[in-house]
């Protein structure tokens, strides 16, 4: 049994779901959704949980991550309750719920907080460069190391614990609820380890890994959305482009590389990043599709910063090749600022995590379904 908590709905409004209360539970959204199935039926069920404020069930649910936001539900909603945006808001709320630091929630709910953080990082970058006397070579060298450490630090300190929390809410806690009151010997789990792993045998964890990588790199499930081929393709090359750019700059040291292949690869992938994100930004400005109609600050920051990252990286390398980077050192500082803001704010506390949680959601979903069999 759960007690109705109307405060949850009010909280969720701060994450962008402003209209879901109009829902009269007709289920049109679920009927038109091309990803909803008998076992995983949404969005109506999630709207209902949000209305009644059932935080526990929402925290344990993977459904928000199973939605890839084609917007059909919102276009067809007779009450204009905007279920698509509710699912998006639930993803934001879940992100905040998984985040142990609490900063995700703060940034989602408060634009000023995000701006303050952005400004602080900007000041930090400029302050550091000033302390080095704006020495291009030195700053660029440290900048490269910063990237490596930022990635490792953010992943180890924030993302990994958050993923563990996600696993705890989705897999472990519900399994405990199921076995509550039973002695360990009475549970259906075959071993103590399985019990510790939330009722799912280790073997299943391993055999399901292929699904995890498949979804992480391809977002295959998004193809299930109707008329989504273009958006999926853009997204696909953006992910590949972004990951390759990360690899090229961090591990192949693109900005210092003499290798022709690395140089050209860098140009190519940075161009992909800014071209695709340019299309995303203009889409959000034009609002011509349901998916791009409702943009929250977190959405803007994500696409714009990704775009800026691509553009500035491209230009920095171009300036290096034309040997004018030292006389135009501001460009590198701009790039570094964007990079630092991206790595320290948007990646750990912003929309970037959706990429990670989605992949893990597909993985956990597979785990649950395999274990149920």
């Amino acid at each position, binding site marked *: 049994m759960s007690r*109705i908590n*109307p405060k949850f709905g009010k909280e969720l409004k701060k994450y962008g779901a402003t209209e879901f*209360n*109009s829902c*009269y*539970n007709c289920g049109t959204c679920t009927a038109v959704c091309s990803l909803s199935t008998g076992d995983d039926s949404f969005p109506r069920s999630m709207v*209902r949980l949000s209305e*009644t404020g059932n935080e526990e069930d929402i925290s344990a649910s993977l459904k928000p991550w199973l939605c890839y936001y084609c917007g059909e539900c919102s276009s067809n909603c007779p009450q204009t309750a905007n279920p698509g945006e509710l699912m998006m808001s639930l993803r934001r709320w879940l992100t905040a719920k998984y985040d142990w630091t609490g900063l995700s929630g703060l940034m989602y709910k408060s634009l000023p907080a995000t701006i303050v953080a952005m400004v602080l990082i900007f000041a930090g970058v400029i302050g550091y460069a000033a302390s080095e006397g704006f020495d291009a070579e030195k700053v660029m060298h440290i900048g490269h190391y910063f990237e490596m450490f930022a990635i490792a630090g953010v992943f180890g300190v924030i993302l990994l614990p958050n993923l563990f929390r996600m696993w705890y809410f989705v897999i472990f806690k519900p399994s405990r609820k199921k076995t509550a009151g039973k002695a360990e010997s009475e549970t259906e789990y075959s071993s103590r380890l399985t019990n510790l792993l939330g009722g799912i045998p280790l073997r299943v964890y391993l055999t399901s890994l292929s699904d995890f990588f498949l979804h992480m790199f391809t977002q295959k499930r998004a193809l299930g959305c109707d008329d989504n081929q273009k958006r999926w393709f853009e997204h696909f090359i953006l992910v590949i482009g972004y990951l390759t750019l990360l690899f090229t700059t961090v591990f192949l040291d693109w900005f210092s590389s003499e290798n022709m292949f690395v140089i050209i690869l860098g140009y190519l992938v940075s161009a992909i990043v800014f071209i695709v994100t340019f299309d995303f930004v203009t889409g959000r400005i034009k609002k011509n599709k349901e998916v791009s109609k409702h943009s929250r600050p977190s959405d803007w920051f994500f696409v714009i910063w990704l775009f800026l990252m691509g553009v500035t990286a491209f230009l920095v390398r171009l300036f290096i090749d034309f040997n004018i980077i030292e006389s135009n050192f501001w460009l590198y500082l701009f790039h570094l600022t964007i990079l630092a803001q991206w790595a320290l704010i948007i990646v750990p506390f912003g929309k970037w995590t959706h990429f990670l949680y989605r992949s893990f959601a597909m993985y956990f979903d597979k785990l649950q379904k395999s274990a149920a069999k």
Partner: protein
Amino acid sequence: MKKKLGIYICACGGNISDYVDIEKVKDAVKDEDCVILAKTTMFACGDSNQKDMDADIKANDLSGIVVASCSPKLHLTTFRAVSERAGLNKYNYVHANIREQASWAHSDNKTGATEKAILLVRAAIAKARLAESLEPIVIKSRRSVAVIGAGVAGLKAAISLSRMQDEVFLIERENRIGGNLANLDTISPENISGKELLIRLEEDLKKEKNITLLTNSEVVGNSGNIGDFTLTLKISGSEGSTTKDIKVGSVLVATGFNSYIPADGEFGFNQIANVITLPQFRDILRNADSKKFVFNGKVINSVAYIYCVGSRQVKGENKYCSRYCCTAAVQASLDLKKKYPDIQNYHFTKGVRTYGKQELIYKESNSAGDIYIQFLDKKPPIVTELDGAISIKAGDLLSEKKEIEALADLVVLVTGMVPDKDTSIGSLFKLPKGRDKFFNEIHMKLRPVETVIDGITIAGTCQGPKNVMESVNSALSAAAKSHSFVSKGELELEPIVAYADKSSCNWCNACSDACPFNAISKIEAEGKEVASINKSTCKGCGMCLPVCPTDSIELISFTNKEMESMIDVLAQ
């Protein structure tokens, strides 16, 4: 003179002919005595066949018609009209039902169905041979109407009748008019209060010259029949009560409803503090402080409404939907929120029925953050006290039927309508009641304001739950119907009535006891007491016939001779 009969056997587009061999039926009856013409037809009720019948009657100088088709409920009047158009008295038309009684009833046995159809048509022919031409009974009618009950339906009906120049007696039991209307607050979707509506009606009433308003008056006696009723009124005044007789041509009953009062313990009513009914809630809200909503010394921050209390009961008697309460409850919750915006409303419903334009206030309430829980019949809300608040638990259909709980400071039981507990008018006029114990119309769609008692119409919530708009609609409809009874000064009645043979009757009271319409009275004739049947009141139901020990009563058009001739055919 020997009758000349025409027989038509209908295929009903296959409904009959798929199971009954209609050609065989035709062949079986075409040589019957008096039959000079027998035909089959695809659709007897169709325009072309009606024209053929008309031509046949004229060309062959037919003196009787039999159509074997569907139930007479559907097309008796159709073929009577055909006969009249062709210049044949309509009572020479006899209907045989070979669809409901043969083809549909015996679709598994085609031979048997055909045999039965043949017998049914032969029996109809036997009756048609003996059928007589009849003329309608014409009676005088007074141009005045009594309207009983001065609620919104009665007021509206009285004003409407007065505007049609009928004399109106508006009779009200209470000392004021308005009935339940005066207690209603905001009425959706017009957003007008019951009080404002009543003021408007009072003003309209004052302008009407043909209305005699009688408050503190009860109808205690009724005699006469359509066109000429005599009602006895008991009028209470400061100096005791007086009686008065009024004479009217029609009576319009608009006696309204009572609000359901929950039983002790029903959803905690009268057992848990702060569990109240919707009318009580309205009273409290009307008089509540404008800053804080305090009830029973407690500041109210959340209110739960439990719908369908006393309506749509699974276990109780009231199976019906009271129609107005969903809208009234949603409206009340909106009014509450308008006054105190921070209050949280929870609605425990059986499915919200804010139909038509009322849907708009449901949407408004929903969008404003009210939470609706659709409880299951199997898991109705359980109301208990919990830590100084009230806990309401129910299975929620919309949350995968899981049990869900709300905590509220006040529980409002959304009570429906029940029939007026004063049943005197119903008994006095012998008005039939439906299973819901409200007065019953003849047919909810085709004759929605008439009762089986000629001349008596019903309007408003005495007939069944209605909202204000529906009450007004039915009042205007009933007014038009009552007006049609009195407007011409005379009335034509169906001549199929019973009559008693004075020579063989020895008054024994049996027929009078059996008559559901009070049509039989005792008179002195030929030096003895005999039964006399009032032609205007008799409905020709035949209840008096079998109880008569001396077989002195005959029913016109269903005489013993006619019935026996039909039975003879069927028993062959």
